């Protein structure tokens, strides 16, 4: 390193000073300037006039202590006693550049160690600071897992009994009440299915099969029709024949979430549109929509943009997971107050 070179040059300067001292005392019986094979030197007086010089680069920088020019390292040493009238002794050595390699080696070596250390330290700190957040997410997950278990039996019983009820013999007032119970039970059912999928079923192995999408959409639209009716929505279905090879359970979650969102965030007397073409499914609504800044976060877990509607904010995160798993793409186009279009391509 240059500091090592400086130490070496200082040593040479010390040696040369001693020789100048001897020559001073024996001048002018001796007039041979002391030479050394290890370095070249020059002497200048306090008026910067050259007394004698052996060095190659004579553009001396008297304001520097050490400097490099033309692949030579120079040390400018100021003498306290002016032997032979010398105020400045200049020592010059060849600069092989080896010290630069040494510096780079040290920078890379120590830099890597420091980088690694700070990275590990940063990781540790990040873990430490994120721990409370992680704990609360785990707690929420555990809570959902525990509660969903207990929801299944009563929910199945409610839905089965609603289906079995004979509405023909029912008075109109009771029919409306039953319809409300049905809507509430189905909303809870979708939520229940999302939560069980998230906590229990997503680890299960896929049973991929060729699905007639049109048939599935008719089935799910029918399932949600009672919810749509409650908001006086109308379906606008343009469904072409289309199939896909996928796990039925997972694809149903995708369709269910997209349709239920289109209903949930729609305006009264609005429209829920479903367009199906080969390789593309579009589900749109005429609802409240979202602002542009919110769109990138729409698939994040536990993110909800409207607290007026119920839910945990897990539906679209499930959709995104499934879509990614099957290498499909989903695009969100939304305008606040106008509605949202979810475009699924595969």
């Amino acid at each position, binding site marked *: 390193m240059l500091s090592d070179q400086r130490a070496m040059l200082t040593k040479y300067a010390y040696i040369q000073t001693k020789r100048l001292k001897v020559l*001073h*005392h024996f*001048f*002018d019986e001796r*007039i*041979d*300037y002391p030479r050394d094979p290890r370095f070249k030197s020059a002497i200048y*007086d*306090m*008026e910067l*006039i*050259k*007394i*004698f010089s052996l060095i190659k680069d004579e553009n001396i920088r008297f304001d520097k202590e050490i400097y490099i020019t033309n692949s030579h390292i120079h040390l400018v040493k100021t003498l306290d*006693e*002016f*032997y*032979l*009238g*010398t*105020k400045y002794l200049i020592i010059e050595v060849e600069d092989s550049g080896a010290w630069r390699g040494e510096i780079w080696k040290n920078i890379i070596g120590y830099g890597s160690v420091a980088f690694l250390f700070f990275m590990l330290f940063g990781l540790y700190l990040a873990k430490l600071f994120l721990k409370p957040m992680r704990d609360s997410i785990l707690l929420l997950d555990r809570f959902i897992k525990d509660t969903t278990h207990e929801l299944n039996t009563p929910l199945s019983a409610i839905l089965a009994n609603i289906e079995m009820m004979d509405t023909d013999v029912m008075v109109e007032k009771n029919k409306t009440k039953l319809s409300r119970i049905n809507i509430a039970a189905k909303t809870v059912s979708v939520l229940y299915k999302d939560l069980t999928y998230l906590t229990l079923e997503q680890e299960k192995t896929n049973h991929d099969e060729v699905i007639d999408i049109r048939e599935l959409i008719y089935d799910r639209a029918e399932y949600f029709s009672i919810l749509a009716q409650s908001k006086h929505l109308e379906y606008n279905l343009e469904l072409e024949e289309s199939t896909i090879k996928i796990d039925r359970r997972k694809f149903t979650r995708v369709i269910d979430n997209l349709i239920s969102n289109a209903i949930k965030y729609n305006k009264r007397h609005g429209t829920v549109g479903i367009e199906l073409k080969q390789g593309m499914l579009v589900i749109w609504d005429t609802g409240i929509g979202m602002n542009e800044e919110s769109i990138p976060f729409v698939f994040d877990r536990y993110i909800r943009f409207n607290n007026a509607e119920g839910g945990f904010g897990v539906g679209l995160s499930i959709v995104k997971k499934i879509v990614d798993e099957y290498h499909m793409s989903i695009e969100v186009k939304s305008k606040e107050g106008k509605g949202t279009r979810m475009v699924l391509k595969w």
Partner: protein
Amino acid sequence: MVKTILMAVLLISGFSTHLSSADTYERHCVECHKELPTSLQRMFMRYLLVYGGEENVKAGLKHYLKYPIKEISVMSDLFIDNYGIKKKTRLSDRQIDEALDSYWERFKVIDKLK
């Protein structure tokens, strides 16, 4: 012809100036220092050791010649105890300068090292 005469005059005047400054040094310095055991060369080296460059050496010497006191002498105590301090110079500034120029030229280190 005129050119030759002019050249001759210039050469003669330059030579005579050189002679006169050398003369001042010879007459007013060398004469007295002959008596002393330390040569003018060694004294010059002492001045050079203390004062460094040409201007400094000449200024230091001129001051000492005009106001010689023990405290500013570059010579050792032993030398001063034995030979004392010189008397104050009676030379004019111009003569001192001439003598010092001569002294510097005779003993300077520059151009002598090999």
